[in-house]
């Protein structure tokens, strides 16, 4: 053996299980602390022979099991009762019996994962494939059917000659020096490694791109965007007119739609009568709609001051005697039907809103031609308000 290598331990192999048990006992008795026994399977009584007590790993299981239970239980309550209320079958938000199955499963899950990961990573300090014992004849033997005992050089009592003597005395059939392996050096920028990194980078980004931009949009992952059904504007050879959509039967009236009887008549002989009473609410509605739809052409007060600045024929004043004398239904008729250059506003404005506009126009007209008596009426009203 070369001298420049550092000694890790001296290892001895035994043939039978009884020998290893007594060897372990004697090693403990001799006061060695840093020693270990390697056996191909767990040997009963070895823990005691090596002077070790019970494993305490059960506490890890207990802690994480309880943690898992508490966590998922509170989480279910929180998600049901706080985050987003879901009422199912009239169950309360804290549905304890219905939470039991998941609480149980999560308890087991947390406990099992924590125990195994804890055992491997914390207790065993695995993975560790560079331990000095690896790849020795000793390891190969104890992996099969032999039993081994190693005394480490770090032990306080360690003295190589004495240890070998001691192990021979225990009845070992073979004794082996275990050295630390030479540290292999890996250079960071090895071409092979860089190539590997490049391939990984290209593959990952390529896959991500394809997944997010292509794969997500092919059938069947396309959220049923494309279906073999007829949509409104599609053609179809099923019908004589090659239209996918069927026109409604002659005379069909759409729901909520009342046909206007004087449609297309420039000067109807009779008109509808106003069904509304000019309450404050109606006037407010009418004002809003008037300002939105009528004021651009007829001005904010219906005086015919167009804001369109000649881009469209100016709407005439609504304060002419003609309009004042028109019945309500006639103004309604003009809004609904349009008049010469003025288009119909029926599609934009509902029937109710049209009557509200008519009411508001009446208000505007009255305001332009207010009489002394109107003021009195207002005063009377305010006095009566005070009296009340």
């Amino acid at each position, binding site marked *: 053996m070369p001298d420049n290598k550092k000694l890790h331990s001296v290892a001895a192999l035994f043939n039978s299980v009884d020998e290893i048990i007594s060897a372990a006992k004697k090693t403990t008795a001799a006061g060695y602390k840093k020693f270990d026994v390697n056996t191909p399977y*767990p040997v009963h009584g070895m823990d005691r*022979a090596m002077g070790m007590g019970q494993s305490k*790993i059960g506490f890890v299981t207990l802690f994480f099991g309880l943690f898992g239970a508490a966590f998922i239980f509170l989480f279910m309550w929180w998600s049901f009762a706080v985050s987003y209320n879901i009422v199912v079958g009239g*169950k309360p938000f804290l549905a304890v019996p219905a*939470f039991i199955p998941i609480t149980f*499963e999560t308890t087991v899950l947390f406990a099992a994962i924590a125990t*195994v990961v804890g055992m*491997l990573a914390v*207790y065993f300090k695995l993975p560790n*494939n560079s331990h000095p014992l690896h790849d020795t004849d000793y390891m190969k033997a104890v992996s099969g059917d032999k039993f081994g005992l190693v005394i480490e050089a770090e032990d306080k009592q360690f003295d190589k000659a004495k240890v070998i003597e001691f192990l021979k005395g225990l009845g070992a059939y073979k004794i082996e020096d275990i050295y630390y392996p030479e540290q292999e050096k890996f250079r960071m920028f090895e071409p092979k490694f860089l190539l590997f990194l490049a391939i990984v980078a290209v593959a990952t980004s390529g896959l991500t791109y394809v997944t997010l931009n292509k794969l997500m949009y092919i059938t069947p992952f396309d959220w049923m965007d494309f279906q073999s059904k007829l949509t409104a504007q599609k053609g179809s050879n099923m019908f004589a007119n090659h239209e996918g959509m069927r026109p409604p039967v002659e005379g069909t009236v759409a729901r909520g739609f009342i046909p206007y009887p004087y449609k297309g008549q420039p000067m109807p002989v009779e008109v509808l009568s106003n069904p509304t009473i000019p309450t404050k609410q109606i006037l407010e509605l009418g004002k809003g709609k008037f300002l939105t739809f009528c004021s651009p052409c007829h001005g904010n007060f219906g005086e015919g001051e167009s804001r369109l600045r000649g881009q469209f024929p100016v709407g005439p004043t609504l304060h002419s005697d003609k309009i004042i004398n028109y019945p309500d239904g006639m103004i309604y008729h003009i809004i609904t039907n349009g008049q010469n250059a003025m288009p119909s506003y029926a599609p934009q404005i509902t029937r109710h809103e049209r009557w509200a506009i008519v009411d508001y126009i009446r208000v505007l007209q009255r305001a332009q031609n207010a009489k002394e008596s109107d003021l009195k009426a207002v005063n009377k009203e305010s006095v009566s308000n005070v009296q009340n």
Partner: protein
Amino acid sequence: MSLDYSKELTLVQGNMTMADLDNAIAKPMDTKPNKNYFIALAFTSSLLLLGVIAVSLTFYYGIGEWGNNQPVGWAFDITNFVFWVGIAHAGTLISAILYLLRQKWRTAISRFSEAMTIFAVICAGIFPIIHTGRPWLAGYLIPYPNAMQLWPNFVSPLVWDVFAVSTYFIVSLLFWYVGLIPDFATLRDRTVSKIKKFIYSLFSLGWRHSNRDWRHYEKVYMILAGLATPLVLSVHTVVSFDFATSVLPGWHSTIFPPYFVAGAIFSGFAMVVTALVFMRKVFSLENIITMDHLDRMNKIILLTGSMVGYAYLMEFFISWYSGVPTEQYVAINRAFGPYAWGYWVMVSCNSIFPQLFWFRRFRRSIPVMFIVVVLVNVGMWFERFIIIVTSLHRDFLPSSWGMFYPTWVDFSILFGSFGLFFTLVLLFTRTLPVVTMSEIKGVVEGAQPSHYEGDHNA
């Protein structure tokens, strides 16, 4: 033959030494497989391919490819799911429950049946996901903070199922892997091939058979067995809740959880025996997986089969005793309605044929046990089919009665799942030790110290 029950039977026969055991167990991994292996693999992977094609068609065209309809919204899909979850249970029973009961004979078959557990859960897990029609959205079942700010409905048995089955899978996998670590180390130290050595080193994590590690290891193994035991019982209980918590006649029944668990163990043991019969022969492991093992497994099949039979009778009785007309009708309809043939296949395969196992001669006869366990597998599949389809196809309203007829896609997916399962089993037998080396070595004659300090009562 006289039996001395006061003494443990020898677990390993034929005076095998530890080295013999290692060689026998590692042989499938050290040698090249023969032609028969490839023929078997070709067969199972063809089945798998058929299943893959059928599932792809389902994804592309939708669930309409199946025979499912109104009112039979669950059919082959959920039948297969329950069937495979049931198969899985045997492995955990053998590896965890029998471990806690100190049944040392489990050692020889635990690895193999645990592997079957994992593969069966994989097969099972596919079905609930594909039966949603858009399986890529299944992620919503997991509670994670998603863009819709919604959480799963935790009081739904279907969500319990997600938790139960995925927990079961993860815990089984951990249990299996923990058992494999020392074996990987042994294989690592045996092999001469560089590639194999790299792989085994990777998975052995650098295990050194150190007694300082064995100490915790054994404790953890026991803890995992302790966790897996209630877990395995809970899994099929939760699966049965999928049915039992509904109000459908034939489903709404408190006998379901124990009935399902017994059925699961029953079908699982049948599947394990089916596979073991071949495996011990093909890999000449007759001295490790002995006739005594099969004998004991057949006894459990007899027990659970009788429990299932009892449940069938009880269902009939309770439906009459309940006084609910629809409930009574469903029971009658099961036995004498349009699916009566399936019902009687189920009853005969599950409760009648296994009665042969009362006789020691039949329990120890390979051909008899093989036929019986295959029939049990068939019968248990039909049990789930009958439970699901006969309850759905005729319930309260005669005007919404209907019939279910499977399509070729349904059958292909069913056969495909068998293909997947057996392909995985075949690959497993060639890549991993089918018997736990580190455990079996511990139970051969003379493996434990003859008179270790202290007495057994300490």
